[in-house]
């Protein structure tokens, strides 16, 4: 092929390098890039609405996300935030008997009152309505202390992160004035009522209904909600129900509407508290509404706009799971390492054994990564665009949630392991912490659904941008086809040969030595930056391959989507870790060497894991394996039992079978 022979020579000739080869630049979303060799290039992805994850799918690293790592405006702000957090931590250490509340399955009323007095019921409610007005970064920090007791964390989150969040986000001034002050002090508590017996992940299929009363003054609500945290006592609930809406074409459709429902409106009954595996002190129950009359002024947002409000509410609270779990892991590291330094076996302290060290190391690494990701996300959520609108960080928040929930469960289990038999006993808190953490993978969007969301939302964006190239490949003119093929080739070539190749056409992390730019990254982190760049390009390549292979049908390829989502999460983790470590090195913070070692370990491990993950999608690996998986799963699901015959089945006849005897002969021949 002519191209093959020409390109290497051209790439090595700096003068000719780019202009000859890339007339197709416009295919990359229509933005022309200037290639002034020798000048520092920052990747500036200023496309509106493009978050980190979306840009990642195109192989772009969004520098606005990466640099600088979120910081507080001043030393005083940091000091105050630490004071707030310490006050919370202290209350939990001294006043909250988690073991007792877990055993009894309910909260100590004194503890709940203490939480209200501390001001924890209105953390994100603006100061003018009686709350603390914490922004997302501040809230994330305080949440680190709350996780001392998971049941309390969940109760508080159900109240403010979702229960009253709707009023904050979509409420009118009157609604805010009426409800927020009492909710901030905890005089009233809130709950979020969306899930129904037949509608969990599929929230759009809810069947609760509300219709206007004859006089048009009230909505009459009927429906049954299940698994509502705080459902047994909440005074104010955000309830979602289907209402008939006439759309632009004069068609009547059923759309979800959000309502602010007070228990005192009548017709509200709470079921018995559920007996749970974990977070047992928190109240979870069914709530049913029978002809509950809601004044029309209590509609939240617009009639028919409820689904979007529900999703916005859920998206806005997810990121805090990262810091909550990180706080918990840090506590576990203290407890487990203390124990490992005391317990001796075989004449050595447990702390000297590698297998034990590995567990502590993994916990530290995961805590570091998840808090980096969480604060990066929170920091971005606090940045408003020029219209005063927050950015869409929903994909990144979902990534934080997936990562932190799974680490909580796996590391909780490893931590319990360090304690051996003691870990299994109820006398010690580790089994409770493990039980409490299991719910994290289920609520606030199951991890399966969130992975699909992460993958599909990024693919949708990438697909739209790559559409031109894909179209060209399929149906374009000869020149267009060739340019598309050469783009593809150039990527594969670049990946195969690594550094010292021509400048990458897309804005890059600017760390590669050949790019002749002074990298912005701390010198000791440059190799890590290169790994990040490579992982990103590999991810982009796979995204492109999968889109090309499946097109719209990719929606059904859940196994592929899962792999892509996992890769994206790993890369986001790498980015957050590098950004944060860079900041620590700039500031020369305490224990910087230790931190750098931890960060480097994380990046190296993730880089390797990513290759393994992405390798699953390579043509040769993927097709056969997943075909087998599909066939076996379908059989099992249809027959609803394990289908293979038992290992011992008819073994007595096995040894008489002529085939067996033949094989026996052949084996004997090997030995001779």
């Amino acid at each position, binding site marked *: 092929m002519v191209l093959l022979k020409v390109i290497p020579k051209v790439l090595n000739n700096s003068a000719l390098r780019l202009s000859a080869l890339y007339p197709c630049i416009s295919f990359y979303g229509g933005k022309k890039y200037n290639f002034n060799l020798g000048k520092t290039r920052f990747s500036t992805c200023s496309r509106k609405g493009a978050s980190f994850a979306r840009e990642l799918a195109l192989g772009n690293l969004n520098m606005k996300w990466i640099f600088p790592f979120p910081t507080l405006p001043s030393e005083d702000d940091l000091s105050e935030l630490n*004071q707030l957090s310490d*006050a919370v931590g*202290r209350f939990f*250490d001294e006043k909250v008997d988690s073991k007792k509340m877990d055993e009894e399955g309910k909260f100590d009323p004194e503890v709940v009152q*203490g939480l209200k*007095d501390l001001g*924890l019921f209105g*953390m994100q409610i603006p100061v003018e309505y009686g709350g603390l007005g914490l922004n997302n970064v501040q809230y994330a920090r305080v949440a680190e202390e709350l996780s001392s007791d998971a049941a309390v964390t969940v109760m508080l989150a159900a109240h403010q992160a979702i229960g009253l969040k709707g009023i904050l986000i979509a409420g009118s001034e009157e609604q805010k004035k009426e409800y927020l002050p009492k909710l901030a002090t905890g005089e009233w508590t809130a709950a979020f009522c969306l899930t129904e017996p037949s509608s969990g992940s599929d929230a759009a299929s809810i069947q609760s209904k509300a219709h206007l009363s004859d006089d048009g003054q009230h909505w009459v609500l009927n429906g049954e909600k299940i698994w509502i945290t705080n459902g047994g006592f909440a005074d104010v609930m955000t309830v979602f129900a289907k209402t008939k809406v006439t759309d632009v074409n004069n068609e009547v459709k059923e759309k979800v509407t959000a309502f602010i429902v007070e228990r005192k409106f009548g017709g509200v009954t709470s079921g018995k508290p559920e007996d749970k595996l974990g977070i047992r002190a928190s109240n979870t129950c069914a709530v049913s509404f029978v002809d509950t009359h809601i004044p029309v002024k209590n509609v939240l947002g617009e009639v028919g706009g409820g689904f979007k409000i529900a999703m916005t509410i859920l998206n806005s609270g997810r990121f805090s799971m990262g810091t909550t779990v990180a706080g918990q892991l840090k506590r576990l590291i203290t407890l487990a390492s203390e124990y490992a330094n005391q317990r001796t076996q075989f004449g050595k302290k447990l702390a000297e054994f590698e297998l034990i060290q590995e567990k502590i190391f993994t916990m530290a690494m995961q805590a570091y990564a998840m808090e980096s990701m969480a604060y990066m996300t929170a920091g971005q959520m606090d940045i408003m665009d020029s219209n005063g609108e927050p950015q869409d960080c929903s994909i990144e928040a979902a990534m934080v949630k997936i990562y932190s929930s799974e680490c909580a469960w796996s590391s909780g289990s490893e931590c319990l392991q360090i304690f051996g038999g003691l870990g299994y006993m109820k006398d010690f808190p580790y089994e409770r912490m493990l039980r409490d953490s299991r719910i994290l993978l289920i609520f606030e969007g199951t991890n399966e659904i969130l992975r699909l969301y992460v993958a599909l939302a990024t693919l949708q964006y990438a697909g739209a941008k790559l559409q031109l190239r894909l179209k060209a490949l399929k149906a374009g003119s000869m020149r267009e086809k060739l340019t598309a093929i050469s783009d593809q080739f150039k990527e594969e070539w670049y990946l195969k040969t690594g550094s010292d190749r021509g400048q990458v056409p897309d804005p890059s992390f600017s760390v590669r030595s050949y790019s002749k730019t002074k990298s912005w990254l701390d010198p000791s982190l440059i190799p890590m930056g290169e790994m990040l760049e490579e992982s990103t390009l590999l991810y982009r390549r796979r995204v492109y391959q999968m889109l090309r292979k499946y097109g719209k049908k990719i929606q059904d390829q859940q196994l592929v989507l899962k792999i892509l989502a996992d890769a994206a999460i790993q890369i986001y983790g790498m980015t957050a870790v590098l950004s944060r470590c860079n900041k620590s090195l700039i500031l020369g913070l305490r224990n910087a060497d230790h931190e750098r070692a931890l960060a480097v370990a994380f990046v190296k491990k993730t880089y390797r894991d990513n290759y393994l993950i992405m390798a699953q999608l390579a043509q040769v690996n993927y097709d056969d394996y997943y075909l087998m998986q599909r066939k076996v799963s379908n059989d099992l699901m249809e027959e609803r039992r394990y289908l293979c015959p038992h290992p011992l089945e008819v073994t007595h006849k096995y040894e008489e079978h002529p085939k067996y005897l033949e094989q026996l002969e052949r084996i004997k021949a090997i030995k001779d």
Partner: protein
Amino acid sequence: TMARVLVGVKRVIDYAVKIRVKPDKSGVVTEGVKHSMNPFDEIAVEEAIRLKEKKFATEVIAVTCGPTQSQETLRTALAMGADRGIHVEIPADDYVKTGPLQISKIFAKLAEQEKANLIILGKQAIDGDNNQTAQMTAAVLDWAQGTFASELKLEGEKLTVVREVDGGLETIDLKMPAVVSADLRLNEPRYATLPNIMKAKKKKVAKLTAKDLGVDLASSIEILEVADPPQRLAGIKVENTEELVGKLKEAGLV
């Protein structure tokens, strides 16, 4: 008369932290270690605020002496309800050599300046364990003192203090002005609520140096070494008194 109360607060290593001695034996490790207000000082602040809430005091002024980080402790006092704060800034190098004698002189000068008539301090700090500052302050000012207070009652010019002493409880009457040191059972300090912590930002904190007050920080004490207490050895069980006496004689103790 109403009291104008001066309360002393000290930033110490948090009581729950495991203390480690520095390898060079010059002191304990403080870098990166969690610090908080001395627990007895919290009790002192709480008592002062209760006096104000019961309208026996007009103003509560919190005072701390130390390097820049000591301000955090002041802010906790303000969050608990003190009206304003004074930070007597002492650089870290000098602070290491500062002890109760110097601090008591500073408090005495401040009491005069602020026209306070009641000083409440914690009975001792959990790092120094000196139990001297309240007594020395009273002596410098020539005021009455009520130490190890487990109960406090103010009536006009008379301050009734119930003291915890070795033999039990001693009740004394003091004539104001007076210095009181708070003991454990005086009260249970309130938790600084988050809204109050944020409001504390707006309260005034004045900054001074020892020189401004005309106090000489020179110390006649020099710390030679800080070391871990010796490891406690295991004990042994004896069957009867004879064996006990025998063992004691063996060890040369009788």
